[in-house]
């Protein structure tokens, strides 16, 4: 076989796959057509575009730099691909006090504002798609989700309920400093000696802001609503 034929065959065998599964979907998904609500609730926002508050870009960067994606996923799979939707607080809340069952699959607009969706590689920790929602309604954290997260990031095993957590401590995201006239409002409830306190550093604040913004249970238009029909 001549070199030319060989390279041609190789190019064809690789190139067809490359076009079909990489290039075409990449460029098609750049221009995802927004899904309209046929039953527009208000005239201005007639399309599904979930908004995210919080420091999404900076926080996502801190998330990536510290490798949170190695143990946490952000993907709620449809029921044909996994049991994520059956958990009471992963895809949303099973018993949201206002809306009832808000659990839903992850859809293509859930990562708005991020450059690279941190879908994740393994699940050594729980899925984080709805961490913000989960913290708001869960007993230990609903009073102050940010404080719970700061305490968790500082040392997860400090929480007696998570005594066997494999999440690593991140004390380097925090600063240890002297108490000034009064303790800082976001100082952690950790004893580090006389007159010293632990406060979150800028990376911790960005990360926590990002984590609290993780609420992917917005109501979806009919095209993305896969609840089985009411009987």
């Amino acid at each position: 076989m001549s070199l030319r034929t060989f390279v041609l065959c190789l190019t064809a065998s690789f190139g067809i796959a490359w076009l079909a599964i990489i290039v075409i979907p990449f460029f098609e998904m750049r221009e995802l057509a927004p899904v309209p609500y046929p039953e527009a609730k208000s005239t201005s926002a007639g399309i599904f575009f979930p908004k995210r508050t919080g420091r999404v870009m900076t926080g996502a960067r801190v998330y990536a730099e510290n490798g949170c994606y190695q143990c946490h996923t952000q993907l709620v799979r449809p029921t044909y691909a996994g049991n994520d939707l059956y958990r009471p607080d992963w895809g949303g809340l099973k018993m949201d006090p206002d809306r009832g069952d808000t659990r839903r699959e992850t859809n293509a607009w859930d990562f708005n504002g991020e450059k690279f969706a941190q879908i994740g590689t393994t699940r050594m920790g729980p899925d984080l798609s709805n961490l913000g929602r989960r913290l708001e309604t869960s007993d230990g954290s609903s009073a102050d989700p940010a404080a719970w997260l700061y305490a968790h990031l500082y040392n997860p095993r400090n929480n007696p309920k998570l005594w066997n957590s494999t999440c690593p401590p991140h004390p380097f995201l925090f600063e240890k400093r002297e108490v000034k006239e009064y303790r800082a409002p976001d100082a952690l409830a950790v004893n580090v000696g006389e007159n010293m306190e632990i406060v979150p550093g800028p990376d911790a604040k960005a990360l926590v802001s990002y984590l609290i913004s993780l609420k992917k249970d917005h109501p979806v238009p009919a095209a993305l609503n896969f609840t089985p029909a009411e009987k």
Partner: protein
Amino acid sequence: MSNSNDYPEIKAPARAGADGHVPRDAAACAREKNIAATGKEPVSVYVIAACGVAMLAAGAILGSAGNLFDYGKVFRDGYKRTPAPGANEGPPPKAAVDAYMAKGKKVWGSKCITCHGPEAKGDGNNFPSLVGSAWALGETERFSMIVLNGLHGPMSTGKTYSGAAGMPTQNPNKDMTPEELSGVMTYVRNNFGNTKGDVVTVEMAKAAFEISAKRSKAGQQVTTEELTADHLKALPGKIIDPKAMVDPLTLNPVFAGKKAEAPVIAPPPAK
């Protein structure tokens, strides 16, 4: 591949001895074997069979792929969530009065609290108090007309309040749904020190909407005269036991256990 004369640009170094011995540096190369031409054995049938099994597995995987190269579809065709095996879906049922009051509390907090105050005591001059109010606690139809259409002029106590232009009207289905109306009415009747003990149901609220729409002065506020003349009765609808279990979201009755029907109580005697 064994004849180096094919590649004249590589000259054998001059050190080769006549007796075939090579310097020790080339000893490792000297003991190497030549690579023989590749054999011509056929592909064994066992290999083909094993590959066939793998192809079956791959085919099964592809079977789940739906239409190949359909870039527009992100979810499986016709996907609807399969319910969790053996689990109850939805929030647990609540007693009717609690469910209605929970709903009404939200409506109160968004619509009524600004004028009537957090304790429903009003402010004495501009907005009336609803605590122990005869009209709030009396016939449901009168109360519903007030909520839906707003009110101006003298109250049940006889006093006239001067707050703004009177109570605002509620556009049916735009400003208030039947669930919200029934909820807020139940809430007022059972909260702030009021203990009426009954539940205004969604069915009654829907009837209220119809009555309100059929008023001769539909769209305008009611007046005391109209209330006394036309609406001094209970809203039509089945009365339910305040403790009956309902679904907190839809406010529909839920039949717990094996009871055939929710208990029905005879309507109280008309006032």
